């Protein structure tokens, strides 16, 4: 195939800064070798905590596209974000306020009470359901592209944050109409950071283990189903007997929800649950990162 005009231009350009390609694109001539050198050896670790921040651009792109994909060819689209928690809240209120009349301390209405638990639980559940498969659902990208892999978890975490940011104002409005605000309300942003850290690291751990053991694809939905009952979401801690309270407090999510109910509704929290959640958060964060760093290099081979 001949392109007489471009061919000539190509020769004219020979000593210039640019090369005109046969397709008509001007590309810069590269003289000096690139400064960036990467060395690959049989090492077990190659992930740095800095990847979390370096991959911000990729994460933003993947998150916005994942969000688009979820509502492609969907008639109601993002309305589902609001519809799901609204219906769940309605059903819980009907059952625990209408059928079994649960008594909430401080004369707080059941709907307001349940909304706080659902906000936290909803975020945790959605992130685990989608983010737990962050690597296996992006297997093609993991296997054929050199992007930092932490980005796949971060992107799904970001997508799950969207419904949380919709639920949060609703929760605060309900709290304002009910028990009112106080200095404790100012702790809410810290609690937000806490639930994001805990959820994010649990998700990272599950997503990493799923690369090797697909068993988690069966296990996680089941555990979440059980979790809805064994986490004090639909009922207050104080309703349970002392021994059951101790058992419930061993669930690391219980303390986080107790903290939210204290900050938003002013209900006094179960101290044991708070301590367990705090310790579990640190433990999970360290363990998740270590497991991820150890397993990440061989993702492409094992996935």
């Amino acid at each position: 195939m001949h392109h007489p005009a471009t061919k000539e231009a190509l020769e004219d350009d020979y000593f210039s800064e640019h090369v005109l390609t046969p397709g008509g694109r001007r590309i810069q001539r590269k003289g000096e070798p690139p400064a960036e050198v990467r060395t690959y050896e049989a090492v077990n670790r190659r992930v740095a905590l800095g990847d979390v921040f370096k991959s911000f651009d990729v994460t933003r792109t993947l998150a916005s596209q994942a969000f688009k994909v979820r509502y492609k060819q969907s008639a109601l689209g993002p309305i589902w974000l609001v519809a799901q928690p609204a219906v769940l809240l309605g059903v819980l209120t009907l059952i625990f306020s209408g059928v079994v009349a649960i008594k909430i301390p401080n004369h707080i209405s059941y709907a307001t009470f349940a909304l706080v638990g659902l906000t936290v639980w909803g975020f945790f559940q959605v992130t685990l359901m989608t983010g737990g498969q962050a690597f296996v659902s992006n297997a093609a990208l993991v296997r054929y592209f050199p992007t930092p892999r932490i980005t796949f978890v971060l992107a799904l975490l970001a997508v799950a944050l969207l419904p949380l940011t919709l639920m949060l104002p609703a929760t605060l409005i309900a709290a304002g109409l009910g028990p009112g605000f106080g200095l404790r309300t100012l702790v809410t942003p810290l609690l937000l950071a806490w639930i994001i850290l805990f959820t994010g690291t649990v998700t990272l751990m599950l997503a990493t283990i799923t690369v090797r053991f697909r068993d988690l694809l069966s296990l996680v939905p089941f555990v979440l189903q059980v979790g809805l009952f064994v986490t004090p979401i639909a009922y207050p801690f104080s309703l349970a007997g002392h021994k059951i309270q101790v058992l419930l407090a061993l669930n690391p999510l219980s303390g986080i929800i107790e903290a939210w109910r204290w900050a938003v509704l002013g209900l006094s929290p179960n101290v044991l649950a708070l301590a367990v959640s705090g310790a579990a958060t640190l433990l999970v964060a360290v363990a998740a990162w270590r497991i991820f760093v150890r397993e990440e290099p061989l993702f492409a081979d094992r996935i």
Partner: protein
Amino acid sequence: MPTVSELPAVHAEDLTKSYRLGQHQTLNRTVRKLLRRDVTSLNPVLPAVDGVSFDIPRGVAFAIMGRNGSGKSTVCQMIAGITPPSGGRLQVRGHIIPILALGMGFNGELTGRENIVILGSVLGIPRDQTIAATPDIARFAEIESHIDTPMKRWSFGMGARLYVAMAICFDADVYIFDEVSAVVDDEFRERCMAEMKALAEAGRTVIFISHNMESVRELCTEGMWLDKGRLKSIGPIDEVTAAYEAAQHHVDA
């Protein structure tokens, strides 16, 4: 000590990559492990790349030849930084765009334009550069009329065109094209080859894998031949292709 301009784009010393064969997690394996039986026999080790040393110079189109399963793609996965070597050492200079499996990574629900944004970002191209290159990519692939249609409605060939065009239009120091010309028509293949040649002339390194010796000779000036994970021959393209073809005819006969 080589001068700065002689530093190769890719430098490999005794590069090795081994894989375990067989299934890695099964109920059978779990039970055997619990009973403390030996499970290593279930997963024999295959050296896919076995102690290979080579240099790929900067600013050339370099071919990697070999039969299926000879280790070509594994070498490329390691150069791309997707999987680490099991042994040896590999050095890569500059930003790399690896096209290792045509069409992989596209999301059928998203449009061509949206997919370009995703793949651009996982290839490490800054977002503004990706968006700026999109019209060029669509024009080069001749899929302008489909660029805003979900890719599940495209033909496979159109997707393949977009994939190759995208790699060609993004800027990098090293490009890997692993068997990209198999599903596209002759006219498009010729245009791609001309662009890849121009990339090499402009100082980029193009690593080209193909079973089509005509294409290899047309584009590349140097190359290497891998056989069962070992390096058989490396050097000027005519010598390597001649040796490779002679061996193939020998097998056929």
